[in-house]
């Protein structure tokens, strides 16, 4: 398969977006997943609604709201531009922000399930052995929740690869700033479009399937001892 420069840049962008979304979302995803799994506090339902909102709101609407927040004329967008030189709307960071917002609920959900599957008695046992909160978290809770964390990463990565609705609002359809779905959508209306899309579709399938295979492998590796 021969890819043009445009196509390569879309593949490259999709991969970068997927990996960056996982990296950026993972720390807050783990924090939020743990808190939702382990703690009860007033207003918890509000947090849950806020986290899951992106699952139910039409992606284009989410994209429109993100645009209103991050456009250069808006306070947040303007501040990021002035203080950090970071332009979100219409630029590459916009691809990441849109995908991150859309995939975050899926990641939190999986990680939360991971922590819920860890018996709190194991954490208590660690405390009686002299481990403080941090040591307990990093040596007991997190390693035992690993399958949930892995699943969360795969879901977030896959959702980012497929993200279209919010992205199309927040990022411009500029050459070199497209992900695979955006490029496929653009090529569709060209005369020979449907045929030239095939290789890109194949690559999309490969990237998604690769993530699933990797997660299967990691989960099995973790399970080997526990079920022995």
């Amino acid at each position, binding site marked *: 398969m021969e890819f043009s420069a445009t196509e390569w840049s879309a593949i490259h962008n999709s991969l970068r977006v997927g990996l960056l979304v996982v990296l950026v979302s993972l720390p807050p995803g783990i924090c939020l997943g743990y808190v939702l799994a382990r703690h009860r506090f007033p207003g918890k339902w509000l947090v849950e609604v806020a986290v899951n909102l992106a699952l139910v709101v039409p992606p284009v609407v989410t994209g429109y709201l993100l645009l209103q927040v991050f456009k250069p004329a808006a306070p947040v967008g303007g501040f990021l531009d002035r203080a950090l030189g970071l332009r979100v709307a219409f630029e590459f960071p916009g691809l990441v922000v849109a995908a991150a917002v859309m995939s975050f609920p899926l990641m939190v959900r999986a990680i939360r399930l991971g922590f819920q599957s860890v018996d709190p*008695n194991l954490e208590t*046992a660690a405390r*009686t*052995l002299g481990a403080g909160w941090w040591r307990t978290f990093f040596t007991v809770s997190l390693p*035992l929740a690993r399958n949930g964390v892995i699943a969360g990463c795969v879901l977030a990565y896959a959702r980012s690869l497929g993200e279209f609705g919010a992205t199309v609002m927040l990022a411009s359809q500029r050459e070199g700033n497209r992900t695979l779905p955006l490029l496929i959508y653009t090529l569709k209306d060209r005369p020979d479009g449907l045929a030239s899309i095939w290789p890109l579709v194949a690559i999309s399938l490969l990237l998604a399937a690769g993530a699933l295979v990797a997660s299967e492998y990691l989960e099995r590796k*973790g399970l080997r001892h526990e079920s022995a």
Partner: protein
Amino acid sequence: MSRLDFNCRHRFPSGFEVDLAFEATGLVTALFGPSGSGKTSVLGMIAGWLTPQFGRIRLGSRWLDDSPAGVHLPTERRQVGMVFQDHWLFPHMSVGDNLGYGQRRRGSGPPIRFERVVEVLELEHLLSRYPGSLSGGERQRVALGRALLSNPVLLLMDEPLAALDEALKLRILAYLERVVTEWNIPTLFVSHGQAEVRRFAQQVVVMERGRAVAEGTPEEALGQPTPLGWTHSAGPVNLLRIDGAMLRGDQWVGRLGGQEMKLPAVQGTSSNPLFVQFRPSDVTLSLEDVQGLSTRNHVRGVVSRMLELAGGIFVAVDVGQILWAEVTPAAVRDLGLQTGSKVTCLIKTRSLEVVG
């Protein structure tokens, strides 16, 4: 000096209330009671994962909890080791890593050495295995070793023998006794087995519905007519200590105080002293020593108390230790039994079971 001074009150949302005060002075103290009596909650308060609404807990010279003064030491700083009923070994760590998990903590007194724990609990061949592949008895030993290696000032054990079958119970009990004698760690254990309490503990707190209903030595505390021993189990259990067991001719014999007992065959590996267990209903009481019986054991003693229960009358006979006999009310009437009566207890050798 008391090692543990406990005085807590806690009301759960369900309405169940634990209100208990006791001092543990001996090396091994048992919390004895039916399930749901609040025993595990007491361990939780001492370990620190359950914060009582009112609580004053002192361990040696340290206050673990003093709610009037606003003191509540977090679990990890209490130096209280805990062996859980379900072990709670870390499934993602090898046995060796489980054992070493709490080892970093520096305690007072000489540290307990890893190699020695592995040796005493016979864990050498398990070190590279994972908890998922261990048997119940092996898990119990690992959990005990892990708690020991955190160098605890007090060891808590929640029903350490409950999940094990009879044969395994005796083996683990032998390990527990080894551990307590080797390291002299004050131990508080929760149990609902009379035999293990009598054998292992010097002091017993009997709990029911969140409160202490009896306290004292095993003989005193388990002899109280609390509803517990009598409705939640088959009544008192006879577990007598026998010294100097030996084979004379083809008959095993041993001493019960100054009297001789004829025993069933003893396995060569059994410890000395050993314990025999038998049911109170297997004991016949006689006012005089009758000759010409096939029953081989004739143990003389004095009636120290009598308890009337649904099933019959339990007579405690002081033979140096307390021996329980179950008789009918009619028999008590006909023999004129009362506290202070001199009796002979007739026990068939066949009804004795040698335990450890």
